[in-house]
């Protein structure tokens, strides 16, 4: 029994955390943040990606995937609504940055709140009519929404159609930290900060009323409503917060990539982000982080086998999902009382 506990990483981690005092917890958090922050300096090691620059890979896809997966996890994992059009919010954020960045003097940080706000508005507008639907029906409608946004961008003159928008400005420097194409460490740190902020937000909400409401909705929506949970309101909140995270990721992406076009925002991205969530463990923040990291990093790490890499990628997905159908770190609530009793026995 004891040995098993060590193999169960989630419980092992949770035990460590629960038994630690406040100073130890703060230390764990700070050390983890510093270690992850130092990741871009490990480019010379076995971690290095053969073709793309390691810094760049850490920002996109890895960092961005983690950020978007966390956002999608609020919708899919926390409140149990299958959203196949998540890329739409990413696109809205990115195009807000691209258009405002090229036509006005606003810089990335000033566009950020606008991009987030527009994504959230899109989330509410889509949510009010569609969140009355459930399950498969909701999935189809969101899928349609994702495609509509892409097609509008592809066919409108203000978005420059299929040509996309070039010369999106980079973010202005933050003090001594310079944003450069060749050296994307600063981008990585910004993505990291956004990820930390998102994790903070989710953790806060999860243990309080909204988290309970989402959990109740996910498990039995009718029972939730009959027990007084305003389900539509909390579903829209969930959708809107997910949209906000996606929009924020989009703004930064446009500003990092300098060029965006509609072809970057296809259904594939939505599916891939969903795969990250499922692969890591629906509903579990750390599972999602790990899942997105692996799925973002792996294709670039094995780029040396060129075309076969997608085959390997698919194989990894199939094998892992076969052995861990609930994801790498599944959501499972532990029963504190029992765990303690066993520990005493």
């Amino acid at each position, binding site marked *: 029994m004891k040995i098993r506990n060590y193999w169960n990483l989630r419980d092992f981690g949770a035990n460590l955390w629960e038994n630690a005092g406040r100073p130890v917890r703060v230390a764990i958090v700070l050390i983890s943040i510093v270690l992850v922050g130092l990741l871009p300096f490990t480019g010379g090691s076995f971690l290095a990606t053969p073709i793309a620059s390691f810094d760049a890979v850490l920002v996109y896809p890895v960092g961005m995937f983690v950020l978007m997966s966390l956002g999608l996890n609020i919708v899919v994992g926390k409140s149990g609504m299958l959203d196949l059009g998540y890329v739409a919010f990413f696109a809205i954020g990115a195009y807000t940055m691209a258009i405002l960045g090229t036509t006005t003097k606003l810089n990335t940080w000033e566009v950020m709140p606008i991009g987030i706000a527009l994504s959230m508005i899109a989330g509410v507008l889509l949510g009010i009519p569609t969140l009355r639907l459930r399950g498969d029906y909701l999935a189809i409608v969101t899928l349609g929404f994702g495609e509509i946004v892409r097609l509008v961008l592809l066919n409108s003159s203000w978005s420059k159609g299929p040509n996309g928008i070039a010369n999106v400005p980079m973010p202005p420097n933050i003090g001594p930290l310079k944003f450069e194409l060749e050296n994307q460490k600063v981008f990585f740190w910004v993505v990291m900060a956004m990820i930390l902020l998102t994790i903070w*937000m989710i953790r*806060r*909400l999860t243990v*309080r*009323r*909204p988290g*309970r*409401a989402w*959990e*109740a909705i996910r*498990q*039995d929506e*009718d*029972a*939730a*409503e*009959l*027990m*007084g*949970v*305003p*389900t539509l309101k*909390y579903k829209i*909140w969930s959708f809107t917060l997910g949209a906000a995270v996606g929009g924020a990721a989009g703004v930064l992406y446009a500003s990092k990539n300098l060029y965006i076009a509609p072809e970057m925002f296809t259904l594939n991205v939505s599916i891939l982000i969903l795969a990250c969530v499922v692969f890591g463990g629906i509903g579990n923040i750390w599972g999602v982080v790990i899942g997105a990291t692996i799925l973002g990093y792996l294709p670039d790490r094995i780029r040396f086998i060129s075309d076969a890499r997608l085959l390997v990628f698919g194989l990894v997905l199939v094998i892992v999902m076969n052995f861990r159908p609930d994801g790498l770190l599944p959501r499972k*609530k532990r*029963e*504190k*009382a*029992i765990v303690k009793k066993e520990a005493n026995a």
Partner: protein
Amino acid sequence: MAKIGKTLLKLDNVTMKFGGVTALNGVNLEVKEGEILALIGPNGAGKTTVFNVITGVYKQTSGIVDFDGISLGNQKRYQVTALGVARTFQNIRLWGDMTALENVITATDVHKKSGLVGALFGFPRARREETENRERAMEILRFIGIDEYSDRLAKNLPYGVQRRLEIARALGTAPKLLLLDEPAAGFNPAEKVELAATIKKVRDAGYTVLLIEHDMSLIMGISDRVVVLDFGTKIADDIPSVVQNDPRVIEAYLGVPADAS
């Protein structure tokens, strides 16, 4: 014995049709404050439909549902709960992946003002309400007598405790009227006796109870009044001892004796 007061819930000529099927046909029903009213009838008589109409799951085809002076016709389901009607389910519908305590806390949220923004930024009111809810939920678990299970996941609880947790969760919404849908289903005689005591205790604590049940000994033991439904129509409404001997009720349950004519 609690004092029986004014009318709390009134169904006036309520009809509920599903296509060509009439589930309820002009049902009149009054629940008075402080009483335990049992709603009985053979399978398919429309008992659960009455609950579903009251709680807003279905909207009645015609008739009026009046709760404490407010018409429940146009209310959303969660608003009905907020007004003070809570129910349990015939087939247990707890949130299995939440602990017993969390199940009840979620129900206590209904009367709290703080929402998502307050929770996110930790406004004082949100923090205070979290503590209040937790304490009240724990109190309710203690009241129902299942506080030792507070940290267990609902799905892992023994069946009898799950049934009781359903009652606890409904009490979490601080209802004026508690609707119990077959709370003793699947219980053995000892458990039924225990449940009867619990229901009486709930009533004595000031809640009004409307109860659907099949077990006659349970009903005869605790209810102040019994309403009998058959094919969506009310056929009896009186104190238990009278209903028990009503020939129409016996007929509804057992059928007309073969040698009747």
